[in-house]
C-alpha cells in the first residue's frame, strides 16, 4: 500500500468518526429521531475489510450499526445523513432511518434491526452469486451478540454444507447491548464456535487497520476462491453506548480508558507519523477539511432536502407498478359462476 492510499485511509477513518459524532449532535438537537447506534471506536474493522473487498461488486450486509459500512461500501454519505434526517433524498427515501440504510446500486443490501437476521440474508446473497456463477462474494458484518441467535447456527450449517461464498465478519465489541460477553456466552472466543460447522476461522486485533487488512485479504481470497465460507473475528470496542438511550452503566471507566488508548485512529495516525508519511500539522489539516466537508456538504444537504410527501405513505409497500398478467383482477371470462 502506497503513502497516498495510507493517507486516504486515515482520512476516511477520521471522516467516519466525525460523521458519527456529528450525527450524535444532530440527534441531541432532535433532528434525528428513533434509535441511533454509533460506530465510533470500531472504524478499523469496516474500513479495513471493505478496503480489501470489491465494493460495488461484492454484496455487503449488516445490522443496525450500519452508517459506516454503507458509506465504505459506496453509498453517498450525503444520502446516508439525509436518511438519518428522514428525508426523501435519503438512502432509503426517509422510510428506513438509521437502522435501515440501503443502497442496492452499490450492492449494500441493508441494515437490519433484528439481531442475527442478516446471517441467512447474507448466505442467500451468496447463494445468488454462486447460482449466477459470478466471482462476487457476500460479506456479513455482525456483532458478537448476534452469535447467540438460532440464525447463526442454522446459517453456518447451511453455508458450510452448500459451500457458499460468504465472509462472516464478527465485530466482537464484548457487549451484547449491555451484557458482557462472558456473562451471556459459554465460549467467548467467537471464532471457535464455527468449528462445529467445519468453517475455517481466525481472530485478530480489530483496532489496527493494517492487521485487519492483512487478515481480510486472506479471508476474502479463501471465499472468492470457491472454498466456501470463512468466519473472521475482530476484537474491538465501541466508544459510545449501544444506542443513544444507553446508560453505559455496565462498563468500568478503567476498561473504557484502556480501550480509548487503543483508538484505531490514534494507532494508525501514530504509525503514519512515525513513518514520516504525515505530520501532526497534516493530521490537523485533515481533521479540518473533514469537518468542513461534513458541515458544508453533508449536513447542508440533509438539512435542505425535502421531507417525503405524506401522500406517498402507501408507496413501496408492494410493487407500485405490478404486471396485470400476474396480479389481475380476475376478468369475467376467468370467473366460473
Amino acid at each position: 500500500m502506497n503513502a497516498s492510499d495510507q493517507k486516504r485511509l486515515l482520512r476516511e477513518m477520521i471522516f467516519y468518526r466525525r460523521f458519527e459524532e456529528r450525527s450524535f449532535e444532530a440527534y441531541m438537537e432532535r433532528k434525528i429521531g428513533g434509535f441511533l447506534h454509533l460506530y465510533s471506536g470500531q472504524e478499523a474493522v469496516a474500513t479495513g475489510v471493505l478496503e480489501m473487498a470489491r465494493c460495488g461488486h461484492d454484496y455487503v450486509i449488516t445490522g443496525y450499526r450500519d452508517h459506516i459500512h454503507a458509506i465504505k461500501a459506496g453509498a453517498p454519505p450525503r444520502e446516508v445523513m439525509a436518511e438519518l434526517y428522514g428525508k426523501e433524498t435519503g438512502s432509503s427515501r426517509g422510510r428506513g432511518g438509521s437502522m435501515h440504510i440501503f443502497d442496492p446500486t452499490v450492492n449494500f443490501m441493508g441494515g437490519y434491526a433484528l439481531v442475527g437476521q442478516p446471517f441467512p440474508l447474507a448466505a442467500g446473497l451468496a447463494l445468488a452469486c454462486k447460482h449466477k456463477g459470478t466471482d462476487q462474494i457476500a460479506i456479513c458484518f455482525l456483532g458478537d451478540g448476534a452469535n447467540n441467535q438460532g440464525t447463526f447456527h442454522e446459517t453456518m450449517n447451511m453455508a458450510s454444507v452448500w459451500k457458499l461464498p460468504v465472509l462472516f465478519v464478527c465485530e466482537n465489541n464484548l457487549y451484547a447491548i449491555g451484557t458482557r460477553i462472558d456473562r451471556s456466552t459459554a465460549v467467548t472466543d467467537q471464532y471457535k464456535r464455527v468449528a462445529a460447522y467445519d468453517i475455517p476461522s481466525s481472530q485478530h486485533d480489530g483496532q489496527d487497520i493494517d492487521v485487519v487488512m492483512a487478515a481480510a485479504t486472506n479471508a476474502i481470497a479463501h471465499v472468492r476462491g470457491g472454498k466456501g465460507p470463512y468466519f473472521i473475528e475482530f476484537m474491538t470496542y465501541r466508544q459510545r453506548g449501544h444506542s443513544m438511550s444507553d446508560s453505559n452503566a455496565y462498563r468500568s471507566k478503567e476498561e473504557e480508558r484502556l480501550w480509548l488508548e487503543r483508538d484505531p485512529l490514534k494507532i494508525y495516525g501514530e504509525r503514519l507519523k512515525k513513518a514520516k508519511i504525515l505530520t501532526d500539522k497534516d493530521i490537523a489539516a485533515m481533521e479540518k477539511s473533514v469537518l468542513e466537508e461534513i458541515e458544508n456538504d453533508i449536513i447542508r444537504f440533509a438539512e435542505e432536502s425535502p421531507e417525503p410527501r405524506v401522500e406517498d405513505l402507501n408507496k413501496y409497500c408492494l410493487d407500485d407498478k405490478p404486471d396485470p398478467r400476474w396480479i389481475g383482477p380476475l376478468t369475467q371470462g376467468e370467473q366460473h359462476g
Partner: protein
Amino acid sequence: MAEIAYWEAIRRAHDEELAHDHMVIAMGEDIGVAGGTYKATSGLYQKYGAARIIDTPISENSYTGIGIGASMAGVRPIIEIMSINFALLALDTLINAAAKIRYMSGGRASCPIVMRTPGGTAHQLAAQHSARLARMFMSTPGLRVVTPRGPLDAYGMLKSAVRCNDPVIIIEHESMYNMRGEVPDEETFRPLEGAEVVRGGTDITLIGYNYSVHLCLAAADKLAAMGVSAEVLDLRALRPIDRDSIRRSVEKTHKVVIAEEDEATVGVGSEIISVIIEECFFALDAQPVRVHAADVPVPYNRQMEKAAIPNADDVLAAALKVLGRV
C-alpha cells in the same frame, strides 16, 4: 384440458417456471431426492439438479431467510414449508424481513419470493400439525396471501406468484393435494388478486377460501334442493381482499355466511364482516353469521377433531339461520 390432482398442478407450475427462467429455484425440506412430502416437486431434482432443487436442513427460519437474501439479488425462490405450523419458526424472516424490505428501503430493494405451505386440518394430526394461521399472514402489510381452492388456481397462481415482484404466501391444504380438477393444457396464469363467483345465486352469499369453499359448495347443493339459490364466493386472495366482489354479491343477495376453517377470533370472518359493514351495511337484510373452528388447539381424538372443525352441515345450518328458516 386434462383433469389432474392438486399436487400435480403444483408440480407442473414448478416445472414450467424452472424451465422458463434459470433464476427460479425451489428449496425446502425433503423436496429434492425424497420428491416432496406431498409430491409437489417429484422428479424435479432429477430434471434440474441439486443446485436448483435444494434439500434444506430442518431450519425453517434461516432457509427461508436464505431464499429471501437470494431473491434480493435476482433469484426467484419457491420456498416450501412442510406445514404452516412450522412457518411460525420462519416468521422473523417472513414478516420482519420479506414483508418490510421493499418499504424500509424506500422501494430500492425487493424480495420476490414465493412461500408455499399447507395449512389446515387433515386426519388426526393433532394440535401442532393442524393450525391454519391464514389470518396471521393476511394481517401483514407487504405480503400477498393467496389460497387456491383447486388445481387450476394451485397451478396458475403459483406461476403468477413466481413472476410477481412481491413476496407471495400460498396457503394450500393437506386435505386437498389429491383433489382433482381441470387445468388447460396450454400455459395459463391465474391472477393473484380478485375473488371469484364459483356458483351464481340470488338468495344468500356463502363466502369461503381455500378448503372452506368446498364446504360452501356442498351446502349450496343442499340449499338448492330446498329451493334456495346460494351464491358461492371464493375469496382466492386474503391479501389484498377483493372488497368490490364482496360488495357486489351482498348487494345482490342481502344475506351472508362466511365459512372459515380457522378459529374466529381476529380472523378472516371478522375481517369480511368489517368489509361488508364498511362497503354495504345497508344492503344487509340479516345479521351475517360466521362458521368457524372451535376456539381450542385441535384435538387428536377423531370425534373431538370432527367437532372442532366446521363441515358442510354447519354452513347449511348457518345459512338457514340467516334465511330465518330455523
